[in-house]
C-alpha cells in the first residue's frame, strides 16, 4: 500500500488514490465501526486479562486512583495447579463437553421424527423448538423447581411412592419416608448431571432446528435411488441421509461445543457452583473468584479466564481451519 502511494505521487495525480483503490478500501470502511467495537469489547479485554493474570489484585484503586495491583508473575498459574476447585471445574467442563454432545444425535432423531407431513406438524415443530426460545435463566429455574425435593416434580412423585402422609406433633400434615427424597442439586455426584440434563433440553432443540433445515436439502433422487437399490432403515440413514447432512452436523457440533464451554447461566441459577463447589465450571469459577461477593481476586480470576480461553482457542482454531479448508475446496 505504501508503495502504491509513493508511485502515485511520483507519476500523474490524475485519478485520486481513493478512486483507484475504491474496491480495496470500501470493505474496510464498512468494517471499521464493527472492528472498533470488537477491539474495545473483545480483543483489548483479552489482552488485558492476560496481563492481569500476572498480578495479584483485589480490584481496588487507592484514593489517588492508582491501582493496588502487585506483580506476581506466574504465581497465579502455580496456585491454579494445586487448587482442587480448579480441577473440579475442569473435570466438570469435560463432563459438559462430552455429555452435551448427546444433543447432536438426539436433535437428529427428533428432526427425522418431525420431518413428515402430518396435519399440525408446524405446531409440533414449534413446540419442540420452544425450549431454545426461552431464556436459559428460565430453563434453569424450571429445572431447579423440577428437581426440588420438597415441592418439585421429583419430590412429589417420590413422596407418592415411598412416603406416607402422617400428622406431626402439632397435627399438621407431614411426610415420613422409607428412603429420603433424592436431592439431586445438592448431591456432589449428581448435581452436575442434573444441570447438564437441564442444559440439554434447549440444546437438543437447537440441533433439531439445524437438522430440520438440513433435511429440506437432502436430495430426493438419491433417496429414491437408494430405495431402489434396497437400502432402508439404519443403512439408509447412515449411508445416504447423514452424509448429506454433513454441513448441518458441523454447525451443530460447533454450537454445542461452544455452548458447553460457556455454560454459566444454568449453574449460576441452579446451584451457584454448589454444593461446596462441586458443580463449578471454569467460567463460573472465574466469576466466583473475581467478581462475586466472596471473590475480589481479579488476578487469579484472570488466570482462570486465560486457561478457559486457551481451551476454547483449540476448538475455535480447529473449526476455523475446517471452515477455511471447506471454502478452499468449494472454490
Amino acid at each position: 500500500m505504501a508503495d502504491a502511494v509513493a508511485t502515485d505521487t511520483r507519476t500523474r495525480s490524475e485519478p485520486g488514490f481513493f478512486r483507484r483503490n475504491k474496491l480495496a478500501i470500501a470493505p474496510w470502511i464498512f468494517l471499521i465501526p464493527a472492528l472498533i467495537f470488537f477491539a474495545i469489547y473483545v480483543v483489548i479485554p483479552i489482552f488485558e486479562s492476560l496481563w492481569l493474570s500476572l498480578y495479584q489484585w483485589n480490584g481496588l484503586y487507592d484514593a489517588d486512583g492508582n491501582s493496588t495491583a502487585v506483580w506476581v508473575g506466574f504465581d497465579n498459574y502455580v496456585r491454579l495447579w494445586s487448587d482442587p476447585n480448579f480441577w473440579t471445574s475442569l473435570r466438570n467442563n469435560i463432563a459438559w463437553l462430552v455429555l452435551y454432545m448427546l444433543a447432536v444425535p438426539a436433535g437428529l432423531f427428533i428432526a427425522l421424527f418431525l420431518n413428515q407431513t402430518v396435519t399440525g406438524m408446524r405446531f409440533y415443530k414449534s413446540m419442540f423448538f420452544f425450549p431454545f426460545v426461552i431464556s436459559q435463566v428460565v430453563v434453569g429455574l424450571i429445572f431447579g423447581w423440577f428437581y426440588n425435593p420438597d415441592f418439585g416434580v421429583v419430590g412429589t412423585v417420590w413422596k407418592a411412592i415411598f412416603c406416607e402422609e402422617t400428622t406431626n406433633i402439632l397435627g399438621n400434615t407431614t411426610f415420613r419416608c422409607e428412603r429420603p427424597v433424592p436431592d439431586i442439586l445438592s448431591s456432589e455426584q449428581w448435581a452436575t448431571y442434573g444441570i447438564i440434563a437441564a442444559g440439554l433440553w434447549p440444546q437438543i432443540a437447537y440441533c433439531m432446528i439445524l437438522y430440520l433445515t438440513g433435511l429440506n436439502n437432502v436430495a430426493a433422487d438419491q433417496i429414491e435411488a437408494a430405495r431402489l437399490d434396497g437400502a432402508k432403515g439404519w443403512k439408509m440413514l447412515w449411508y445416504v441421509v447423514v452424509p448429506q447432512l454433513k454441513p448441518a452436523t458441523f454447525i451443530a457440533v460447533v454450537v454445542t461445543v461452544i455452548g458447553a464451554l460457556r455454560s454459566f447461566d444454568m449453574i449460576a441459577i441452579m446451584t451457584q457452583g454448589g454444593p461446596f463447589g462441586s458443580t463449578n465450571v471454569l467460567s463460573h469459577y472465574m466469576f466466583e473468584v473475581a467478581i462475586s461477593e466472596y471473590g475480589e481476586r481479579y488476578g487469579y480470576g484472570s488466570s482462570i479466564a486465560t486457561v478457559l480461553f486457551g481451551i476454547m482457542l483449540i476448538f475455535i482454531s480447529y473449526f476455523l481451519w475446517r471452515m477455511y479448508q471447506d471454502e478452499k475446496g468449494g472454490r
Partner: protein
Amino acid sequence: MFLNLKTAVAAIALSAVAGTAFARDLVINFDDLNPGPKKGFEDAVEKFKAENPDINVIVNINDREAHKTAIRNFLTADAPDVTSWYPGNRMAPFVDAGLFQPVDDVWEENGFNEDLAAIKATMSRDGKIWGVPYSYYQWGIYYRKDIFDLLELEEPQTWDELLAACGKMKENGVTPFTIGTKFLWTAAGVFDYINLRTNGYDVHNALTAGEIKYTDPRIVATFENWETLINECGFVDNHASMSWQDAIAPFANGDAAMYVMGNFSVDGYKNAGLTEDQIDFMPFPTINPDVPRAEEAPADAFFIPTNAKNVEDAKKWLAFVARPDVQTQWNKTIGQLPINSKADISDDKFIQQGFELLNSATGLAQFYDRDAPAAMAKAGMEGFQEFMLDTSKKMDILQRLDEVQAEVY
C-alpha cells in the same frame, strides 16, 4: 429498578453541580432500599437536617447488592462524604487501600470509647478506629414455644440439656433443627456459635485472622461438638437445597422446632403465619462453662472516605448517628438493637432479650464471613456445608481449609 434509576439520575445531577455548590453539601450513600431500613435512615436524616439547617444533606440510597459493587468504584472515582459499610474484615480491603479515613477523634470527643465499648475492637484496624456503627442485631436459637410446651421442655442452658431436649423431640417425631445451607452462610452461624461456646471469642478471632489452623485441636473439638449436634440432634433433610427463607417452612409447619438464626428472621416467621406466642428466643447453650459468653452481633456502620470533600460535617453525622436518642429511634423503626449502651429499646420481646444478651456478652463476633477474608470465608463455608452433609469427611475438609488458609493470609 425505578428507584435505582432515580438515584442514579440524582447522582449524576449531583456530580454536575458539585463543583459550584457551597461547601456545606453533605453527601451520604446508604445501602438499604427495604422499606423499614430506608425509613429509619430517612427519619434520621430529617432530624439531622432540623438540627443543622446550614448543612445541605444529599442522600443516595442504593440496594444492598448494588452498593457492594458500587462502593468499589465510588470510593475512588466520586467519593461521597459518608458511606454505609460493614466493620470487621469487610472494611479491611478499603482500609488497607487507604480509601477510608480514621475517625478516632470522633470517638474521643463524643465519649464513644465508653458508650460503644463492646464494638470498638470490631471497628478498629491497625490501631485506629475507622467508623461509627448505628445498629446491630443478635443471633441465637429461635424455637417453637408451643412444641416445647407440648413436650414439657425448658430452654436448655447447657449442652447436655440441649442434647437431652433433642432426644425427646426426636422420640416425638420432631426434627430438632431447621436450616437452609444453599447460600452457605447459615452454616457459618452454627459453626460460629459452637466455636464461640467451645473455645471462646479469642479463638474465633485468631481463627478468622489466620493465626491458628483449622486442624488445631481446639477447632477439631468444635467440629466434634458439631458432629455430636448433627448426630444427636440433627437438621432437616435437604437443607443444602434450601435458602434460609425456605427453611422456615418446616419450622412453621411444626416439623422442626429450633432455628439458629439472626433476629431479622422474626419477620419471616410471622409472615409464615406464626404468632409471637408460638415462637421464642434463647441464647445458644453453654458448652464449656469456663469459656466467657460471647455472641454474634453483625453491625452496620458509617465510614468517611479518604476523598470526602466535607469531612467536618461528615464527622458531625457520625457523631449524630451514635447518639443515644438517635439510635433509640432508628432501631425502633428497623427492629434492631442500638449499640450505644445509653440508648433505649422498643418493647418487642425479641429485641429486649437480644439487648440483655448482647449487653452481658464479653465479646461480639461479627460473623464468620465478615471476620474472615473473602476467599477464606468462601472456602470455609463450603467446607461447613460439606461437613453437614457428610461428617465423616471432617479431617479432609479441615486439612483442605488449612491449605486455603496458608494461601490466603
